[in-house]
């Protein structure tokens, strides 16, 4: 049984100009010990998906459809009290800005210990010992001394390490990491990514890694979901999606990333821009920009369907067409 199952999740924002559908029937699953990447550009809905799962959707957003199951039990629609128990204990979270994640008034040791005491029910002395141990695990030098330091006494990269410790210390089964390295320098990014990957593997924790950076996904994730305009357009093993993308959007995305290896004459670009939530076209949302568009695309919305070793929401891979195309 997968650790996390998201079935046809829809999130809406009622505004005075009408209802905006920010997520439209998003479905995926995360297995135990797996790293799933959610990649997409701004406005695609990847952060919203993470927020909905962990129960931190900002008003007036609300879950308007679908189910979220954690270890087989529904967690969408739980009362706030129960959701709070799940948060931290069974689902951990890492956000982009470590400065706002950590409380500036308390030492990091106190924050770690408190989290463990609340969620694991262990006594204070034991919690402090484990806090020091966690700091060592995330690579903070001299952890016995640094455990009594305040967040502002750490550098950016160190702070993010503390945040990772905080997310993992209650031993959750799943960690949702939303752009964990975007605010950091490139050289620090590499360190943090490596750390997250190693710890997740060592503790058997699944990770849902939300980012716009395909490179981070390539290094860390086992599978990746590509999001566009509130939907998943492609889902599959990382190497496959990157090397042989099945969805035209993924293709365009990969082609527009400047590569370190060769200097290209001109970057391939996707014309136009992602549609605003108030103006999502009917049928496939990518159809106005798609180089492979045909009649059916603007009429009917495609669901994820098998396309080689991945799944893509694209009529191009519909069985009848696939047969015709691949003869």
């Amino acid at each position, binding site marked *: 049984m997968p650790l996390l199952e998201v079935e046809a999740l829809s999130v809406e924002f009622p505004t005075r100009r009408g209802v905006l559908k920010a997520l439209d029937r998003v479905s995926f699953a995360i297995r135990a010990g797996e790293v799933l990447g959610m990649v997409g550009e701004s406005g695609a809905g990847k952060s919203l998906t993470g927020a909905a799962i962990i129960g931190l959707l900002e008003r007036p957003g609300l879950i308007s459809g679908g189910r979220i199951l954690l270890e087989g039990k529904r967690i969408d629609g739980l009362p706030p009290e129960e959701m709070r128990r799940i948060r931290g204990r069974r689902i951990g979270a890492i956000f982009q800005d470590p400065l706002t994640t950590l409380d500036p008034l308390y030492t990091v040791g106190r924050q770690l210990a408190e989290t463990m005491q609340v969620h694991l029910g262990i006594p204070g002395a034991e919690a402090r010992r484990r806090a020091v141990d966690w700091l060592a695990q995330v690579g903070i030098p001299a952890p016995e001394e640094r455990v009594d330091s305040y967040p502002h006494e750490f550098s950016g*990269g160190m702070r993010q390490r503390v945040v990772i410790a905080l997310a993992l210390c209650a031993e959750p089964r799943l960690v949702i990491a939303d752009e964990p390295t975007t605010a950091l320098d*490139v050289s620090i990014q*590499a360190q943090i990514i490596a750390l997250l990957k190693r710890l997740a593997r060592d503790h058997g924790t699944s990770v849902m890694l939300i980012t*716009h950076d395909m490179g981070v996904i390539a*290094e860390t994730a086992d599978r990746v979901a590509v999001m566009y305009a509130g939907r998943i357009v492609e889902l599959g093993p990382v190497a496959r999606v990157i090397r042989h993308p099945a969805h035209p959007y993924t293709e365009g*995305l990969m082609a527009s990333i400047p590569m370190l290896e060769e200097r290209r004459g001109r970057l391939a670009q996707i014309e136009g821009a992602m549609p605003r939530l108030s103006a999502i076209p009917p049928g496939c949302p990518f159809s106005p920009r798609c180089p492979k568009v045909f009649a059916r695309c603007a009429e009917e919305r495609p669901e994820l369907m098998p396309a080689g070793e991945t799944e893509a929401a694209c009529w191009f891979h519909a069985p009848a067409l696939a047969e015709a195309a691949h003869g």
Partner: protein
Amino acid sequence: MGEAATADGATLFEAEHVTRLFDVSGPWLRRVTNGEKQRFLRAVDDVSFTIGRGSTLALVGESGCGKSTMARLAVGLHAPSRGAIRFAGKPLAAARAEAGLRRRMNMIFQDPYASLNPRWRVARIIAEPIRAFGMLGGARAIAARVAELLVQVGLQPSDGEKFPHEFSGGQRQRISIARALSSEPEFLVCDEPTSALDVSVQAQILNLMRDLQRRLDLTYLFISHNLAVVRHMSDRLGVMYLGRIVEIGPAEEIFSVPRHPYTRMLLDAIPDLAPDRMAGGRSRVPIAGEVPSPITPPPGCSFHPRCPLANARCREERPEYMVAGATRVACHAVAEGRLPA
């Protein structure tokens, strides 16, 4: 210095031993009563480079390396504490005092949400340089020129009547570019112009900038932290660390034969998406440590705490530049031939 070579050999922009200090001492009263010394931040430390007409020089580095300060120095928003900057052969301050020369340089900024005045309509924003330099007379001539510029950057002439908040990030950068071009400059300083944009939008903007460079014979000083973008855009490249240029030379040479240990580590730290190297994801070689505070940089070579090749000399003596191929490098290991292949 001798690396101004371009096709026609014309140097448009020159920085010579430029240093910029910022006073970061505590409040005056406290300093005086406690007997503290004044403290200075060396944002830019003895930086020299030239840019040939029609070419692109990129300055790359991480936070605190001084590239943004250098961008501001290049357009005269700060004055150098030491050293000289020359534009078209004249000292920068003198050039900027003269409207005719000041018109020939402009700047594109990083944050598309803060670089356009939210209360002004787009047409007025783009026309500001035109009006400031008195280049055209009459509302109709200006309106026509604004429409022309909007089309040139891929927008509609009717977009001039809208406000910035009606546009997306990529479109706002296009407006910024149109504004920068309206004074018909030759030299553009681009401070991380695509860092805040999505990847597909970035591709559009970079393509646009290259097209414009070719068509209008523009010279770019391109600031970025993204080496892949820099590879795509630049002819020559300078790697900066804690205010110094540690390696500078033709982009192709630096990418194929990186010499300075920091350059090598920077290249190694970048995730690799190339298909033939994918095999389950190549794990990067993370750089040890973090960038130290620029207020109290390490003595000797400022990279030595993180450098795998550091020896005693590196800890004490600041390396001078040496020439290797067409590149200048400041590294003892390179000078002593200790660099592994």
